[in-house]
């Protein structure tokens, strides 16, 4: 019988090996996927027991913090947002039952202090309990307030302000916002409110027709590709036939042969439509790509909460080989859609001598002992245009504010460069379906000689023009930041 006993023991060894195999699979090899499972609420409950780090504005204002509830085994932390709805976007929320969004979601690992398994073992041996890190953002509270107040007076919309040399996001405002403190009580209502869509971050997710602000991109492509120089003139009639449809200037005004500065100052549609056709679809697409169109922005927010800017057919992004009326794209019409963040990046790239920096909301990570463990190292996203082209565009954009369509953006004692935009959005359900509604825009930067801030401001469903509603918001926000704002820490 001994032979059988030995075989039986081998079987037991094999069975136990299977147990070890399965245990290894669940605990190590498949662990990461299991932690991501929707049914797995354990990571959330565990995070709730960790004191999540604070989120601070650039000047140290507390945007989000965690407060303890209960004692001992039932101790847990709950998120509080002292500034209520001011930073609903882009900070978002973080709660166990409701989940998380935006900045809170993207920077979760730093905020809960997730390090490598090795360091957490060291911490455990040293008797440390896991504690989250603080994150200091680049957001400027004073300017954020001004932006949201301006939007509140003008209508639904968004403002994005970027420091051109570093890509630091100083303002990211979306109206209407929401109070993250209310999320545990009214997430369903917030989600179901389709008219106001308060959870939609219009600055990064709102795809809107950019209107004439896109002419800056067309001009950049024309100059940088050598299709035109600042002196090249194009005849700009009042009405132009494009693909069998008439394309009009405002009041059908005939400008005759004019160069870029006049065309941009007066936002001459027929001039840019022809430039678009001269540049051609391939080249225009190439420059759009360089400015960040046709891909998700490189900002530190969750990718599923970001929208791509580009030309869309029923939600599908079109490419350089699709049939597109390029003349109308050149003036920001056709099926072109852009987010305020994207348009702010266009302004920032021109302001920074043609270099587009990666836009970032975070500035540094501070551990519970007050040590800075990570610091934003500004990095270049692309160089869409040469320094020379940027300078030429800068000059042309100054004319828009000093004597053109964007005079309301002027700041006393400061040279401002910019571009207005007013895209007609008739029969738009989200605007109530009226015929007179526009998407009003202003993008620009100041001071023009040494740009400190680049801003895109947009108001939707307004019957007014870019210069009437968007330019004043640009001006107020720029003024606040140039006056020192709340300081950049």
């Amino acid at each position, binding site marked *: *019988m001994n032979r059988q006993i030995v075989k039986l023991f081998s079987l037991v060894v094999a069975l136990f090996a299977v147990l070890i195999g399965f245990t290894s699979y669940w*605990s190590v090899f498949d662990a990461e996927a*299991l932690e991501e499972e929707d049914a797995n609420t354990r990571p959330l409950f565990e995070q709730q027991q960790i004191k999540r780090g604070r989120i601070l504005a650039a000047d140290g204002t507390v945007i989000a913090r965690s407060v303890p509830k209960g004692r001992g085994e039932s101790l847990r932390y709950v998120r509080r947002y002292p500034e209520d709805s001011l930073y609903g976007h882009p900070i978002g929320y973080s709660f166990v039952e409701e989940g998380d969004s935006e900045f809170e979601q993207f920077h979760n690992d730093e905020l809960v202090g997730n390090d490598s398994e090795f360091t957490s073992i060291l911490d455990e041996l040293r008797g440390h309990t896991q504690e989250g890190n603080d994150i200091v953002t680049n957001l400027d509270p004073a300017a954020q307030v001004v932006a949201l107040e301006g939007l509140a007076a003008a209508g639904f919309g968004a403002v994005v302000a970027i420091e051109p040399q570093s890509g630091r996001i100083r303002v990211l405002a979306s109206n209407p916002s929401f109070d993250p403190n209310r999320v545990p009580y009214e997430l369903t209502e917030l989600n179901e409110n389709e008219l106001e869509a308060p959870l939609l971050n219009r600055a990064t997710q709102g795809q809107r027709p950019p209107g004439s602000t896109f002419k800056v991109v067309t001009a950049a492509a024309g100059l940088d590709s050598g299709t035109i120089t600042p002196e090249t003139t194009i005849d700009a009639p009042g009405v132009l036939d494009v693909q069998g449809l008439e394309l009009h200037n405002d009041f059908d005004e005939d400008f005759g042969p004019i160069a870029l500065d006049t065309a941009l100052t007066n936002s001459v549609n027929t001039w840019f439509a022809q430039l678009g056709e001269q540049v051609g679809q391939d080249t225009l697409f190439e420059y759009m790509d360089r400015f960040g169109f046709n891909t998700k922005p490189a900002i530190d927010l969750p990718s599923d909460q970001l929208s791509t800017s580009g030309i869309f057919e029923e939600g599908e992004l079109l490419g350089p080989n699709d049939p597109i009326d390029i003349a109308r794209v050149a003036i920001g019409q056709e099926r072109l859609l852009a987010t305020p963040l994207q348009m702010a990046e266009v302004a920032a790239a021109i302001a920074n001598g043609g270099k587009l920096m990666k836009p970032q909301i975070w500035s540094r990570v501070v551990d519970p002992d007050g040590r800075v463990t990570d610091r934003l190292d500004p990095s270049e996203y692309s160089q869409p245009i040469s320094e020379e082209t940027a300078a030429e565009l800068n000059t042309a954009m100054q004319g828009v504010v000093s004597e053109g369509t964007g005079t309301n953006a002027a700041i006393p004692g400061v040279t401002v460069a910019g571009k207005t935009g007013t895209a007609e959005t008739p029969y738009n359900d989200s605007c109530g379906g009226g015929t007179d509604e526009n998407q009003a825009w202003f993008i620009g930067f100041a001071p023009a000689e040494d740009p400190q801030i680049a801003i895109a401001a947009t108001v939707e469903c307004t019957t007014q023009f870019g210069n009437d509603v968007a330019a004043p918001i640009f001006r107020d926000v720029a003024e606040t930041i140039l006056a020192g704002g709340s300081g950049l820490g």
Partner: protein
Amino acid sequence: MSARNRELTALVPVALLLTAGFAAVFAQEGARIDDASLVYGAYFLAVCLAAHIYLRVRLPDADPYLFPLVALLTAFGLVMIYRIDPDLARDQANWFVLGLVLFALTIQFLRDYDVLERYRYTIAVVGLLLLLAPRLPGIGQQVNGAFLGVKIGPLAFQPAEFSKICLVVFLASYLREHREVLIVGARRVLGVTLPPLKHFGPMLVVWGASMFMLVFIRDLGSSLMFFAAFLALLYVATGRFSFVAIGMAMFLVGAWFFASTVPHVHDRVEIWLDPYAHPKGSGYQILQSIFAQADGGLFGKGFGQALITIPGTDNALLPAAQTDTIYSLIVNELGLFGACGVVMIYLLIAARGFKIALIAGDGFSKLLATGLTAVFSIQAFVIIGGVTRVIPLTGVTLPFISYGGSSIVANFVLLALLLLVSDRARREAGAEARLGGLALEGR
């Protein structure tokens, strides 16, 4: 070093481990190291020493490693249960002492365990009655749709734990007598070796009992455990793999039939195949068991660090953490390394148990040791396999670790029987060796 001195030496680290374990739990809970951990460690060592001295007197030649290994599992279980609920740990400590009392009584009265052979049919009937008891009106108890418990007045226990020992004793005895005829009388039909029907009748009874358990007791885990132990013994006794294959086929057919007709069994299998179908309902326990393991990783979160209830509530995040899913809690807190340690201890116990069977002189001793070791190992496999989704999850306890009086007491009786067999086997082997001028040391 003599066998008993080796046993004594091995018990010291066990007591130290228990002390360290309690200290870790205390440190986690109160951020201080309480003297109580030392007191617990001392008590535990004292109780183990008492048992050791008893073994020294009664079974001086018995295997020296089994008792320390079991003590290690018990100590480990006590710490884990203490970490879940100190009140449960106090109960468990009492059960441990009671278990040792029954352990001693078994050794006292079954010194000559051959007597078991004489009462084998009585034992078989007692075993079957024990299995039936949970269905008897008035004393039966239903747990999660399965009839597992019996409650007489204040005394509640799970009869299947004791029944498994009865079954092994009966099978060992029956097979010892009939193994020859089973081998010789076998015929080959269509290339398959079939056992002689006449002597196979009682075997069919065992198969019937397993099926009966599936249907009436609805206890898939015990059913699997019993039948696997039966097949293991049949194989060792006859050396015919074809018998095992036939048995396995019969079990699978029966299990498949009942799985598709008995709702409770059917549900268990469905949950096993697709736990994500009802993640908050029927699939909750197995999913949480696996999530807890995923949370543990390689090194675990440390003693007392894992979540068992949903914070701020009394709702279980890991259901039945002190019984069914205690292994998942171990993986969660001590990681894959800790779990490997636990499985290794079971494997070492199995190794020592089969070693006893190897050196045992007579057929009954061999088969008894084999059966006891097999049923013990399979029980560990069924529950660990259940919580790791190797097989459907069933309500079997993890021997010596899970909370539960019946389990710990019954398993101490099992250990007592193994040591009885071991003592005689080693004494006889030792005598032979001395005759041959060889030393037993190191065996």
